[in-house]
């Protein structure tokens, strides 16, 4: 399963899709460093980073409109988090590359917005070009705690099961509703369906536990091995490092110019 599914087009198979998921994960971790560690005054150095995932996604065959929709969906939430800062901190501040005067609150606002856009973009590129199983496997091989990988994997699998059960219930209701009140306006029916849903998922989880137990599960989760990283994968990791250093370089140049 590709976590981010672009339904309007067949699943592309570009060079980016074929890069080892470990390399792609490391690249995203590299990019996360400047988003978290860059000094506030160098925030605008993040700007060129936002272009990378967009370029990469388009070049690897993902449809631009679907990318834009997925990218912009979380923006209102980010704006909600960032919008308070200009009112909370009116003290003057300096932002490298910004032509005029700014307050520290506005610097924080731009920092939150840009960091979120960059990180979402890179995560989008990661999940759009990597299957969920491959991502989990890469996490395990990069040394993430096994319990974390296990919980993520089972949740992902269980989520699919829950979604199907939920869709079945909704469809069953819709097929016999014959013009009745919408579900949101019929609290009694909604509560009944929710109870059914929970009861079924409980039974499902019990079955999953039985299946695990019967095949010798004892809390560990050994996984199949993977091949070594190739030249392309190392190139992607190197690109990640270069991209991570770019904001620092940009802010240094901006400071130097000033």
């Amino acid at each position, binding site marked *: *399963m590709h976590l981010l599914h672009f339904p309007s087009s067949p699943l592309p198979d570009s060079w980016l899709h074929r890069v080892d998921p470990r390399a792609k994960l490391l690249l995203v971790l590299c990019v996360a460093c400047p988003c978290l560690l860059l000094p506030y005054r160098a925030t605008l150095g993040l700007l060129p980073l936002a272009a990378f995932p967009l370029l990469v996604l388009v070049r690897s065959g993902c449809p631009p409109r679907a990318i834009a929709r997925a990218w912009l969906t979380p923006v209102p939430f980010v704006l909600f988090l960032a919008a308070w800062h200009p009112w909370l901190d009116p003290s003057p501040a300096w932002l490298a590359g910004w032509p005029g005067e700014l307050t520290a609150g506005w610097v924080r606002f731009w920092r939150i917005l840009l960091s979120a856009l960059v990180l979402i973009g890179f995560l989008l590129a990661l999940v759009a070009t990597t*299957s*969920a*199983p491959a991502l*989990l*496997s890469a996490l395990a091989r990069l040394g993430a705690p096994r319990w974390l990988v296990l919980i993520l*994997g*089972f949740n*992902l*699998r*269980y989520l*699919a*099961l829950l979604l*199907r059960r939920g869709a079945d219930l909704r469809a069953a209701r819709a097929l016999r509703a014959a013009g009745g009140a919408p579900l949101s306006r019929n609290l009694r029916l909604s509560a009944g369906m929710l109870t059914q849903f929970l009861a079924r998922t409980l039974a*499902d989880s019990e*079955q*999953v536990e*039985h*299946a*695990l*137990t*019967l*095949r*010798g*599960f*004892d809390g*560990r989760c*050994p*996984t*199949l*091995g993977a091949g070594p990283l190739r030249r392309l994968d190392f190139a992607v990791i190197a690109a990640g490092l270069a991209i991570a250093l770019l904001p620092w370089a940009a802010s240094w140049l901006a400071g130097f110019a000033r």
Partner: protein
Amino acid sequence: MIPPRILIRRLRFGYPGQPELFHGLDLDVQPGEALGIIGSNGCGKSTLLCLLVGLHDSGGSIHFDDTPLTPPNLAALRRRVGLVFQDSETQLFMPTVLEDVAFGLLNQGLAPAQAEARARDMLRQIGLESLADRPPHQLSGGEQRRAALAGVLVMQPDVLLLDEPSLNLDPRGRRQLIELLDDLPRRLNRPVTRVITSHDLDLVWDLCDRAALLDGGQIVASVPPDQLLRDADLLAAHGLEPPLSLLARPRILPASPPDQEDRQCI
């Protein structure tokens, strides 16, 4: 005399808050035998299989060869006994089909490369090699059933318990399943005892050496399938009907010709 592979004596079980499902059930299954268990809905076929792998506590005794099914022996016995659930979707929990099939092998301590080779071989045998890297929830019902079966067969169990194995299979998939299960001892190069619960009486007819009729918490008949499935009166008395496909066979037709009304029904 060879001891039975499975020996069940005075089995008692009931779900909490419900009437007792089994009250003193006795059953033997011989090594290498294929036993079909048939019965109406809710008679306890699936529960019986769950009890055979110790998923619920029960009264009475269950022995595999000479080993009793008790908590200290559970882990060892579960390596020898494989159960394929009726609902395959919940049986597949790993991110890909290949990893799911390899799951049991890795838990048995096999090296990843060995486990992968055996899992791929099993997927090839069961006709799912092209789906190895797909997530289980993207498979059709029949493919999920075969993937679940592969995950159990790859562990090379001595005893295979199958709960409604032909459910959700199209005719070709069903025929392939029958061939696979019938051919299993030869593929694994040793006898495999199979206990199959099913409403698919044709499958029981084709695959099993013996058929047991379960009703009222007891085995009421345990005879060769053709004998049981021909006995329309016995089946009717326990809420079942002879399969139409068998009725069409000359030996199954009643001795006296059916009257006009019966013909129309058929």
